[in-house]
């Protein structure tokens, strides 16, 4: 008997190893999503949209129909698919630049219209694909290529709190959470509950994922964890921010959290 890697069923083996850098959190976020798709048995109904930025490298990641769109425009593309065919389960996958900067208007309006789609947003505190520029999520004092002397909140504001914003502008039917790639089981539960919110036709669902970028952070493995598990949570609190009453409490999730 040959031993196979423990990859989700819905992953496309022919495109593995995937294209993300060593230590990149996208692999873990997409593992959580893959596990959630497997768990819900919806591989035949999921449409996966990915954005510009490193998320685009996921265009052939899954054995599901996928479309790679423009920077920030995945939310309206996926909205278009969902409105035209509500049977499909539509996922928009993007980064913090795509969701909170160039695509912010789409995120705000899709959430406001309570689109029955699931937006998953990887937050690694900067624009990674273009070489590490400041993003809305960059931490105060953090050095990037366009904040070479460290982000100064006086000049460029504070890190964007996406889930808090989405929670504030959505109705009671929305599911909003922030997970982290350092807690895969919890993240998987959030993705399951987000997708369930869509499947059950309740409303908009949004999961921000705190993720890693050793390449642009220029961190070794130890410092990568340090940044993800210590520095980022000081600004971004993880957990469920909004759960529709009909979804109930996440008893499984409590057990799953490390």
């Amino acid at each position: 008997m040959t031993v196979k890697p423990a990859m989700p069923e819905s992953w496309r083996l022919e495109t593995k190893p995937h294209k993300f850098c060593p230590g990149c959190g996208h692999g873990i976020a997409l593992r959580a999503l893959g596990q959630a798709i497997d768990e819900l048995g919806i591989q035949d109904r999921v449409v996966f949209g990915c954005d510009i930025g490193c998320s685009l490298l996921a265009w052939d990641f899954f054995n599901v129909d996928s479309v790679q769109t423009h920077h920030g425009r995945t939310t309206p593309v996926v909205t278009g698919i969902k409105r035209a065919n509500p049977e499909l389960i539509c996922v928009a996958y993007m980064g913090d630049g795509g969701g909170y900067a160039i695509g912010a208007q789409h995120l705000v309006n899709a959430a406001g219209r309570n689109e029955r789609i699931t937006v998953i947003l990887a937050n690694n505190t900067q624009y990674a694909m273009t070489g590490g520029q400041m993003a809305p999520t960059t931490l105060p004092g953090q050095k990037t290529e366009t904040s070479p002397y460290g982000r100064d909140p006086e000049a460029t504001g504070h890190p964007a709190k996406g889930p808090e914003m989405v929670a504030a502008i959505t109705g009671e039917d929305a599911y909003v959470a922030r997970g982290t790639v350092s807690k895969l089981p919890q993240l998987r539960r959030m993705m399951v509950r987000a997708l369930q919110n869509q499947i059950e036709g309740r409303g908009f669902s949004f999961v921000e994922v705190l993720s890693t970028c050793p390449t642009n952070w220029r961190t070794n493995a130890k410092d990568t964890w340090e940044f993800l598990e210590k520095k980022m949570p000081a600004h971004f609190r993880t957990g469920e921010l909004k759960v529709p009453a009909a979804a109930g409490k996440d008893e499984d999730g409590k057990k799953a959290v490390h």
Partner: protein
Amino acid sequence: MEGFEPVTRELPGGTFVVFPGLCKGCGLCLEKCPKRCLDWSERLGIYGTPAIEPVDGETCNYCGLCALACPDCAIMVTKKKRGDA
């Protein structure tokens, strides 16, 4: 299906499998291990950098955090159930 060559280490309380064909050498697993029982291997991963392997079977408690931390699904840890041979 493309297979990935597993390198299997039978440890006292379970099995540790690494797929060098998936390992990019990021070291996240190594740092995540609460028992510090992983190290770099002589064997090279997909990008020509060292893959990882367990150093000492005695210290591993089969928690699987290394496998959860791997962005590339390159690690599998299984704990023997009581009564397994």
